[in-house]
């Protein structure tokens, strides 16, 4: 009797679990299929081509030649360093400005609606448009150079600092900072709003001043919230192509630009190298992201 009852319950439970799994698969499958085919498929094909497996041109080999040639080529190391410099600096500046602006924007003030709208505006602006905007603003014949000339700071356009097509990718960094501050800032605002004022008020009651409250209460709460967003930015800037192509020097160029140049090369032998470069970019992105995560978690633990 008891056994029979139990058996019935088990059957019911099993059916329930089956049902739950079926509905899960039903909900997830469409999106997963698209991502698996496009992403995993593309990555696997890219990897095999970078290793020299290209049936289209009759190559069935397997070798690391493309990788070795790439790493040995003279442009590689300067390009790698430039790419790391630009992506890390753009991310850090964007994070600092995002936190500062989010702390200001969460308060009430006159004209908040308009300022909030302006703040979100860069989110919607395509990177290409901003690359053109920054070019017309900070190049040696740009609006800022003209203003500097008019007030007598410079006597000639060549005296204006070189901010685009420069060695350090300043113009590229400017575009990304302008674009990504609201992205991280809005996430920070969401975090600040979700935690309310309780922690802050408690800290104040315990005698903390504004700086201490920010440093030891707000910051440790904001950082984990904006960490994923800043990782997205870091990975994005590291591998994106348009802005460095328009505002970067041709040597050293950022890695994505090198990869594209190899890919459109008329010489089909350059193809495996282009693939190898893209795969390397992916590997570097993963290493950089893991490193960045580690580092920020350590900082967080120390300040918590």
């Amino acid at each position: 009797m008891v056994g029979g009852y139990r058996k019935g319950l088990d059957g019911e439970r099993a059916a329930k679990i089956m049902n739950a799994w079926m509905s899960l698969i039903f909900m997830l499958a469409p999106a997963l299929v698209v991502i698996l085919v496009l992403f995993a498929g593309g990555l696997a094909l890219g990897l095999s081509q970078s290793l020299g497996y290209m049936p289209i041109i009759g190559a069935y080999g397997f070798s690391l030649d493309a990788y070795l040639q790439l790493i040995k080529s003279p442009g590689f190391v300067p390009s790698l360093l430039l790419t790391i410099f630009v992506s890390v600096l753009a991310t850090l500046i964007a994070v600092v400005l995002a936190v500062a602006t989010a702390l200001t924007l969460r308060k009430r003030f006159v004209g908040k609606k308009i300022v909030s709208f302006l703040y979100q505006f860069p989110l919607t602006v395509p990177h290409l448009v901003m690359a053109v905007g920054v070019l017309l603003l900070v190049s040696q014949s740009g609006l800022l150079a003209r203003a500097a000339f008019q007030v007598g700071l410079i006597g000639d356009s060549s005296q204006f600092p070189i901010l685009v097509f420069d060695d350090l990718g300043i113009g590229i960094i400017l575009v990304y900072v302008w674009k990504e501050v609201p992205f991280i800032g809005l996430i920070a605002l969401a975090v600040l709003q979700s935690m309310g004022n309780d922690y802050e008020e408690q800290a104040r009651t315990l005698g903390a001043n504004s700086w201490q409250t920010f440093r030891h209460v707000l910051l440790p709460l904001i950082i984990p919230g904006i960490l994923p967003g800043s990782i997205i930015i870091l990975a994005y800037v590291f591998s994106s192509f348009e802005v460095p192509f328009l505002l970067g020097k041709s040597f050293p160029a950022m890695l994505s630009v090198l990869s594209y140049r190899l890919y459109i090369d008329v010489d089909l032998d350059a193809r495996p190298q282009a693939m190898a470069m893209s795969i390397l970019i992916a590997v570097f992105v993963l290493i950089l992201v893991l490193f960045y995560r580690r580092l920020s978690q350590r900082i967080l633990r120390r300040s918590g």
Partner: protein
Amino acid sequence: MIGLRRVPSWDRREVKGCPACFRVIHVAVIVAIVVGVLMPVIPLLVWSFSHSWFFPQILPMELSGRAWTYIGSPLSKVANALINSLVIGGVVTITAVLLGIPAGRALGLSRFPGKTLVEFLILAPIIVPGLAVIMGIHVLFIRLGLVDTLLGVVLVHLLPSLPYMIMVMSGVFANYNVEFEHQAYSLGAGRIRTFVHVTLPAILPGIVTGSLFVFLISWSQYILTVLIGGGRVITLPVLLFAFATAGDNSVTAALCIVFLAPAILILLFTSRFLSGESGAMGGFGRL
């Protein structure tokens, strides 16, 4: 949690006594936001109406509508590119919404073995550069006849955008109470009615925010469009890139403004969903 004991001496500055300083900083940040955002847009506006504008003139000597006339003429192919961009962006967004709602619901509401792996797979396209993936899949697309077609471009645009949609939706569903649906069922509502009247209003901020992201990613995509569209599928970014490298500042600037306009329109409608109150941006904190 609050390490007040170990604070270095410079931390203990008494800032409380200077409310005026705070007001000054507050106003300075707001002014910086306004100026910083508008600065790079100003030269675009002025250039688009300038006839001749040489260094060191701070304003153009002569204004003209030349660039705008050119943009409006069939010669520039802008209308064609605009339609292509809108169609591709629209189809990508609708597809992402249809795929993203169920996937976001599964990830936001349930726990199951292997969930971390699924989440990792879905988010991987955001971290791993699209260039590596698209260069690899190019060969397959050639064989399937998908290169140089709108369908091929739509498919590759889904790659960087779908993960955002799922991320936003799973964030929204994580704060969603399924009980309301059960109540609707027990009151006799069918699946469709329950979805339209109970689920949809609750997740609408997420759908709007996610759609905004997806559309904008597709709208501003250049490199994926060029690689798969092969120069045959002309979208606004493809056209803008060509003008920007050709060096006619006035036409480039005017095209930039055309490129900006729909985004501003969308933002006017979605702005309130983005400001922290709706929690739609919270999904990014749950990676």
